[in-house]
Each structure stands twice: as C-alpha cells, then as structure tokens.
C-alpha cells in the first residue's frame, strides 16, 4: 500500500465512522461502539504500516509529502491540503491510534450504561480524525483545521454529560480559552502570510533565514500563545481542571495523552522559527518551567482524583514545553517524554476511571483509602504508572524525565540554574503529590462505608472492573513500565527522530550527570516519604461536614497534621493559595474581564438602539456630517 493511500485512509476511516454513526443515529446503537473501536484499530494498523514503511527506507528519505487537493486557491496566497509523513508525525500517529484504540475498548465497558454511547463513540472517532489531521498536516492552515477540530470534539466530549449545567459551563470555558489560543495561531499564520506569503511548513522554514528577528519573535510568540491555549500552559491553563467534567476515557485520551500535547507538537514542528528567534524560544522554556511548578503545586491541593491528575498533566506538559524551549537539544526529549507520558498518564486516568466505576462515581480521594484490597489489577497498573511518573528507574518516566532535567541544566549564565532547578524541584513535588494521590486512594484505612467500619455515607462495594476495562489498563501499564527503556536501547528513538529534530552533539550539563540523577532520586524519595508519612502512615481526615466530632486519636492525628502543616504544608498552602488565587482571580479575571468589558461596552452602545427611529436618523445624519468633515478636511 502506498504511503499516500495509507496516510489518507488513516484519517478517512475514523472520519467516515464518525459520519456514519452520527447519520445513522439511533439505528446504529447496537453496533456503534464496536464500529468506533474498529475504525480506530484500523487506523492503528495503518499507522504501524506507515511506521514500517518509513523504517524500511533510508533515514534521509523518511519524509514523504502527500498532496491531497488544492484547497483554497487564492492567487499567490494559495493553500493546498497535503499531509507530511515523517518520523515526527508517524510517532504521533502511533501514539494517537494505539492509545486511542485502547481507550475506545475501555470506553465500551465504561460507557455501557449510557444511552448515548453511540454518539460518544462518534465524537471519539471525530476527535481521533481531527487529531490525526493536526499532526499529519503539511501546512499551518491544515494544522489549524485539525486544531479547531480537536477543539470542537473536545468541547463536545467535555459537555457530553450535558445534563449538568456546570459541565456545560466547563465545556464553554474550555472552548473560550482555546479560542484565545487559537487567536494566537491565527495571528501567527497571518504574520507568516504577510512575510513569507505561504503557510506551508517547507516553504516557511526555507524562508526563515531571510526574515528579520523581530518578525520571527512575533510569529514565535503568537504560535506559543496558540500552544499555551491548547496545551493548558500558563497563563491559559485554567480550563484543563474544569475539563475533567467529561467522561474519564475522554480525560485519558484528550486531556492526557493527545490533544493537550498538540502545543508541544506545534513548538517542535516550528523548531526552525524558534531557533532563529532566541527570545521566543526562551519564553517557551520559561512558560514550561513556570507551568511545571504551577501544575505540581496545584496537584498537591486537589482532592478530586481527576483534577489532581489533570494538574499533573499540566505539570508534565510543562516539562515537555521546557524541553521544547531548549532548542534542538530538547526537541527529541520533549517528544520522548510526550510519548511515554501518553502511556502512563492515560493508564492512570483509566485507573482513576476504574476506581470511580467501582465507587459509584465518587471522585473525592478523601472518601477512598485502602482500595488496593478490592481492586488488585487497578492497583497494580496504577502503581506502575505511579512509578513511571515518579521517575524511578527503570520505568519509562525515568528515562524521559531525567533527560529533560539533564538538558535543562545545559547552558550558560543563569538559565541552566533556574530552568534546571525548576525541573529538579518539580520532580520532588511530583513525587509528593502523585504518592499522595496513590496512597490516599489505594492505601491506608478505607474512609468510606464498607459495611464494616463506622464511616458515614451510603455503603460502598468497591469491585474490580470488567476485563474490557482492565485489559487496556494492563497494556498501558506494560508500556509505562518498559517503553522508555526499550526505546532508549541504543538511543534508537532519538535517531529515529533525527531527520526532524536534527542531530545534536552531546552537551555537558553544568552539574555532572550522575550527581543530577542522584539528586533527582533523593528528592523523589523525600517526596514519597513525606506523602507516606502523611497519607499512609497517618490517618487522612475525611473532610466531613462542619461540626463533626473527632475522636481523641483523630485529634492526635490532627495535631500531627498541624505540625506537618507548620513545617511543610503551611508555606506550601500559602503557595497553593497564591497559585489558586492567581488562577481564579488573575487568569479567570482577565478572561471574565474581557467578556465583562465587551458586555459593558455593549450595554452602553445598546442605549443608542433605543427604538426611536429619530435617534437612528440622528445617528445617520451626524455620521454623514462627520464623514463629510473627514473627507473634506484637507480641502476646505
């Protein structure tokens, strides 16, 4: 099968499937979900074929352009629709279709009791198709199509359970924030049009050397704004937490493994622009560093298991951004971390879904505890993901995150110390909050009414999920455990990406590598220890309604908590509070302010439209006089 056909089909199949499911409507309720799975699986098979065909050709030929059709022929500024099949896009293809297919399978069981399961699969297929267009596009214009497509699909999926108003609000918030980012992308495209006269990757990159640094910086910052919106990076991060309102498979696929990484993809893909614009590149790295700390700190404060995971995603993407902002030396690491993260974070989200499945959709971790007894498979698979994200050797995360920390310490002046320091500290905090999450959920005493203890609330019967759900979790867990190590054999993954990211000489960090690894592991161990002391060894207080009576023992616990809080948590709490405040007051405030400003102006302008035709006439007449004055100003 030719590359052209395969690349076309890989997008067309899920798209068609989505169309069929939406058009057939209720008639396809019986088989719709399996059609969705099959479409995704077919795409996956085709992606593997593409991968094999690229592997089979010499490294310098591993970039194939696929011309589809002439899309908008507008004179010199014409845009063609075409795909670019190269190692970078194929890497994404594999990630999207493979993880996507697993999540489809999982969703068959997860959404079983939903009347609209077919529609859910239609949207999932739509999302997969849009995401594939995004990564396969050979121009910013077509990328933008996919970009908007994933936005739309994500929006439909976040709001899928639209019976609840807050979910709909969350969906809208996500859309509006994404829209702000999209504006950046649009402006970047406009600037490219104005300067290069094209938005196709190869033409743009070929023209980069001829552009002034000012333009390139502007374009780079505009693209970064787009990336921030899509990837929930500071300062456009607020929507991701709210987006957890959607069904869990959605969170796993869109808000952990694929869509949110599109920003990283954009930055890496636009590498030539950023390399020629060091300022923009530095901003990317700083944004990444800020977000990784921000996300990690927020993660410490969340009791909602999915929101905690969302904060963690934000933080991990911060790592990728940081890497992407380091220039060629970081691109491959960014993509590597993106790839492994896609596996372990998706696995953990599925695990969270499994927990919710067994716990009547409870998401508050303070109502969990000791679940490892009830759901073995979930516990083990989640545990593997936990080890991976902590960066414990030899699990996947170790290989990818460690590389980023090392790369962050490369450079001169203040940069390596600040960026590297952020990455290092981030690793410690990550260990703390992920362990907190893990321990609160699976270890310690059950804090729900299991029929034996005296916890309030309805009786819960935690149970393991069906095989359709556990099998994808197991596969992803295997990936979490081994993928990083396998791909690191002979640094094969980096060589594979070399045609896109370029070959980079090894740079020595300002701190020796073994010291860095040791420091990282020590920080991680410290984080795990603190979490253990607080959330496993000690009893986790259930945030019960105010005025609940605490036992003596609990009071002692509380006392410990106070100490803990005074020593460790209080500064942290303040930081968290500040962050939360910044999040709600500043960012939300800015977004709302913009909206309110528009509304305020609208209200004022509206007074002109008072219903009196004479006022309209006056508006026109004054307008005419002003027009005449303006036109004749120079003549009279």
């Amino acid at each position: 099968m030719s590359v052209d056909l395969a690349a076309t089909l890989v997008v067309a199949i899920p798209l068609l499937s989505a169309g069929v499911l939406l058009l057939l409507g209720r008639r396809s309720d019986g088989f719709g979900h399996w059609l969705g799975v099959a479409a995704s699986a077919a795409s996956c098979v085709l992606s593997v074929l593409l991968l094999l065909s690229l592997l089979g050709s010499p490294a310098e030929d591993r970039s194939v352009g696929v011309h589809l059709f002439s899309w908008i022929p507008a004179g010199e500024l014409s845009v063609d629709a075409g795909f670019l099949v190269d190692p970078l896009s194929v890497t994404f293809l594999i990630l999207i279709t493979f993880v996507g297919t697993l999540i489809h399978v999982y969703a068959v069981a997860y959404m079983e009791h939903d009347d609209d399961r077919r529609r859910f699969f239609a949207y999932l297929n739509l999302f997969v198709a849009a995401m594939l267009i995004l990564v396969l596009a050979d121009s910013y214009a077509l990328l933008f199509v996919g970009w908007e497509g994933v936005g739309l699909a994500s929006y439909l999926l976040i709001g899928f359970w639209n019976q609840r108003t807050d979910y709909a609000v969350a969906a809208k918030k996500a859309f509006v924030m994404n829209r702000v980012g999209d504006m950046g992308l649009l402006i970047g495209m406009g600037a490219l049009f104005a300067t290069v006269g094209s938005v196709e990757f190869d033409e743009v990159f070929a023209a980069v050397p001829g552009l002034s640094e000012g333009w390139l910086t502007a374009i780079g910052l505009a693209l970064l704004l787009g990336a921030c919106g899509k990837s929930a990076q500071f300062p456009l991060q607020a929507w991701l937490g709210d987006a957890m309102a959607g069904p869990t498979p959605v969170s796993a696929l869109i808000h952990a493994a694929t869509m949110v990484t599109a920003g990283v993809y954009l930055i890496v893909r636009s590498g030539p622009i950023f390399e020629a614009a060091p300022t923009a590149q530095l901003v990317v790295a700083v944004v990444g560093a800020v977000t990784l700390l921000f996300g990690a700190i927020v993660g410490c404060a969340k009791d909602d298991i999915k929101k905690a995971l969302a904060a963690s995603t934000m933080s991990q993407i911060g790592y990728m951004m940081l890497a992407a902002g380091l220039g060629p030396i970081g691109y491959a690491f960014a993509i590597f971390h993106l790839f492994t993260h896609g596996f372990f974070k998706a696995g953990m989200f599925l695990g969270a879904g499994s927990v919710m499945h067994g716990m009547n959709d409870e998401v508050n971790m303070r109502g969990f505890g000791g679940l490892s007894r009830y759901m073995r498979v979930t516990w083990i698979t989640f545990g593997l993901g936990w080890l991976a994200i902590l960066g414990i050797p030899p699990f996947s995360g170790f290989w990818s995150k460690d590389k980023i920390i090392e790369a962050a310490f490369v450079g001169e002046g203040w940069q390596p110390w600040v960026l590297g320091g952020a990455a290092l500290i981030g690793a410690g905090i990550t260990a703390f909050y992920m362990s907190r999450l893990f321990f609160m959920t699976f270890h310690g005493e059950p804090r729900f009414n299991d029929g034996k203890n005296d916890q309030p609330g309805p009786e819960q019967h935690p149970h393991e999920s069906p095989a359709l759900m556990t099998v994808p979790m197991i596969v992803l867990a295997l990936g979490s455990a081994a993928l990083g190590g396998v791909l690191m054999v002979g640094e094969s993954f980096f060589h594979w990406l070399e045609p896109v990211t370029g070959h980079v000489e090894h740079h020595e960090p300002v701190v020796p590598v073994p010291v860095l690894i040791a420091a990282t592991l020590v920080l991680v161990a410290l984080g795990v220890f603190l979490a253990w002391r607080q959330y496993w060894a000690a009893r986790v207080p259930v945030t019960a309604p105010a005025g609940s009576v605490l036992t003596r023992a609990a009071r002692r616990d509380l006392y410990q908590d106070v100490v803990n809080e005074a020593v460790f948590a209080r500064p942290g709490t303040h930081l968290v509070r500040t962050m939360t405040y910044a999040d709600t007051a500043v960012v939300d405030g800015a977004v709302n302010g913009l909206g309110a400003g528009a509304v305020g102006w609208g209200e004022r302008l509206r007074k002109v439209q008072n219903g009196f035709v004479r006022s309209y006439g006056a508006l026109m007449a004054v307008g005419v006089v002003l027009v005449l004055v303006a036109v004749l100003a120079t003549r009279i």
Partner: protein
Amino acid sequence: MFVAPHIEWAALTPVLILLGAAVIGVLVEAFVPRASRRLVQLALSALAVAGALVAVTWRWTVVQSSGPRELVAGALREDGPALLAQAVLLVLSLLALLVIADRSRGEDGFAPTAAAVPGSEYEDQARRAGLAQTEVFPLTMFAVTGMLVFPAAADLLTMFIALEVLSLPLYLLAGLARYRRLLSQEASLKYFLLGAFSSAFFLMGLALLYGYAGSVRLDELAVAVPAMAGMDGLLLAGSALVIVGLLFKVGAVPFHAWTPDVYQGAPTSVTGFMAACTKVAAFAALLRFVYVVTPGLTWDLAPFLWTVAILTMVVGTVLAIVQTDMKRTLAYSSVAHAGFLLLGVIALDERGIGGVIFYLLAYGLATVGSFGLVSLVRTKDADGNVTSEAGHLSEWAGLGRRSPVLAVSFALFLLSFAGIPLTAGFTGKFAVFSAAVAGGAWPLVVVAVLASAAAAFFYVRIIVLMFFTEPPVAEDGSSTTVVRTEGLTAVAVVVCAVGTVLLGVVPSAILAITAQASKFLL
C-alpha cells in the same frame, strides 16, 4: 435628431425574465382564482428565478468568450463581477423564495391580509377564510429585479432607480408578518423612513458628482477624476454621500441602526431574503463604485472607510454579545459581517472582488439557512396553540435533544458565521482577509481577526444553549416547539447546509470562478 438606442435584448434576458414574472404575478393576482393563486405564483416565481439563473450562466459563457461590454446606451455593464454577483444573488433568492413560500401547519409566515387591523374581528375572519397575501411573490420578484440590476448598473441614475426598485418591495414585505403585527408594521415604518432618508443622501451625492463631471456614468466619472482641478470638493463630497447611501443598505455602522429592528420585526423568511440578497446586491454595487470611480481618491477616502469598517466590525460584534433575541443576534452578526466584507472593498486589490463575492455566497447560504430554521422554532402556549416564533434565546435551550437535525444544521450555520475551518465562512474570511493583507490593510485584518475571535463567543453560546442546557420551564406553561413544514424550507436548509460544507472543504471550483471575475470593465 432622435436616434433610437440599440437595445441588447439577449444580454437583458435575466432582467426581462424576472420583470416579466413580476408583472405576470400582478396579473395573476387579478385573474387567477384565490384557491390556486399561491401555487401559480410560487411556480411562476421559482421558474423565473431559475430561468434567470440559467440566463446569467449563459451570459457568463458569452462574456468569457467575447468579453465584457456595455448595454442599453451605457445604462448597464455586462462584466464578470456583475454576472457573478447576479448568479450568487439568484441562487440565494431561489433558496430564500422557498423559505418565503413555505407553509407550516397550513400557514405561511405572512398576515392573511395586510389591510386588516391587527387583532380586529376582520383579521380573524380573514384567517378563518384562509386568505393569503400572495402579492408577496410579485413583490419579491420586483425586489430581485432591482437587486439584479444593482450590481450591473453603470451609471448612478440606474443605480439609484435599482436601489429604489429593490427597496420599495422590501419596505412593504417587512410589514407583513403574520404574528406580532405591531412589531412588523413598526419595522416597515422604520425601514421605510430611514431608507428614504438614506436615498436622499445618495441622491445628493449623485447630484454633486453630476456637478463635478457633467455626467453620472461611472466610466466618465472615472475619467474625470484626475482631470478636474478646483472641483475636487464636489467629487469627494459626492463620492462620500453615494458611498453612505450604499453603506446604509449593507448595514455598516453608523448607518446600521435600522438593521436589528427591521430584522427582528420583519417576517423571518423575508429577513433571510433581505439579509442575504440585499447584501449581495449592495456590496456588488459598492465594489463597482469604489473600484471604478474612487481608486484615485484612496488617500482621501481611506480614513472614512477604515473607520467605518472598524466600527462596523467592533460594534456589530460587541452588540451581538449582549443580545437576548435570536433574530437581533443574527442581525448584529450581519452587521459584523458587513464589516468583514468591507475589508475586501477597502483592499482595492483585484482579489478583493472575487473574495467579497465568495464571502457573500458563504454568508448568504448560512443566512438563508439559519433564518429558515428560525422560522420553524415556535412558541407553544399552555393550551398547545402554536403561535409566533420563539425569539428569546432562552427559548432555544435544549433544542438539540428534541430536534437534533435542526439544531445540528443551525450549529453548522453558526460555525460558518464564526469562520471555523471546513465551513464556507472560513474560506470566505480567508479569501477576503488575504486580499486585504495584499492590499496593505493589515491593521484592519488584525482587528477583523480579533473581532471574529470575540464573535465566536456568541455563536458558541447559542450552540451551548441548544445542546447543553435544559429547556426552561415557563410559568405560564408555554414551551418551545418545532413545527413541521411543507418541505420547502427543509429543501432550502439542506441545500444551504450542503453548500456551506462543500464551500468549506472543496471551495477550489468556486474560488476559481470568483478569481476569474475579479476585473471590472472600465
């Protein structure tokens, strides 16, 4: 001595067909029995518009081979932009005509007889007797005739008369809504008074230009523009006033104030017709005037046109955000779109012409389609009587679950308005904005991109409302319902939806045609 003018009958066929249909339509009112009038009128009008479309296509091929020329002693021009605008106009008119003719639950959207005092016993009798104001059809045909002449008018007098020919029937049609008669009549009065006011300005501009050049023919004006020293005040004031008259028709700020009120009060099907088709005609005429007469005046007119374009985009968008009525929201959105379209006019770049016409087609399809759908969503009172349209946005809540097909197509049109890729709206914006960039108007493009990003907000709000919000529970037991149509509106909506998607995904064929048309005959 008197020399009889040469009349190019062949080239006039589109106009003649429509004019003939309109006149025959008036005779039908007189001679055909009431029972079969509607059917005869509908068939006559639809055939006429379709026939005119065929004729325009034929003329297009002729012009392609033998080149553009002037008709009837220079009253009209037959050239690419004119024929293209006419073709777009006729396509949209045909679709709008289907919506106008449609009857849901046995009623069309018009008062049984306009002469009845609203709420009177006579009106009740007329309703029971099943009267229908079938004059709507010939009036529509007259309006389409005027619109057809407007883009081709080669002198300002023909333009002025065409303006009136298209406006007078619209003033009347705006007052014929079946429900909320009071609002409808008010819309009619406002539209008429402001329309007459603006045409007075247009006429004064015409007179000043005549004083400047001694002629009102656009080509002679264009020749005279650089020549006359000492009289450029007349030229500038005249051009500005003529442009103001045209800007009124397209609904540009500050000459837009009639738009929301008239769009809201007029029968919805007529709103769709005039929103889509008047814009095509007026923009085509504006393009001709600006591109033919004023290129030499760019420097003097630019501040005026730029300010108007920015105001139009910003005011349209901002006010659309605070609306609570569906038709008003769409009206302000149409104001904003007029602003975007002005970019293509200001661009003074050859691609601007094709871009604007493409945009008009994209916008028109979404407009006719969305107003067609608006006419189907009605209020139902506690007793189950279906009455007027559900105007308030809140009444649209939860429509996605009860009428998914309607809601999805409406969402599609909204996405096209918002300019989301793979819809016609995106391609149109792309074409117009890139022409504006090429014409050096990039600051305007920045404003336009910002405005369209903000505009997405209220389009999305409606989508959220339809799909993600529970339908409201009214205290008086009223609710929202979707009425069944005879099928004509459904046909129109489907065509609009398919067109919107096709123009977004594979626009190249149409873009190639619009690109060919980007040249005015001087």
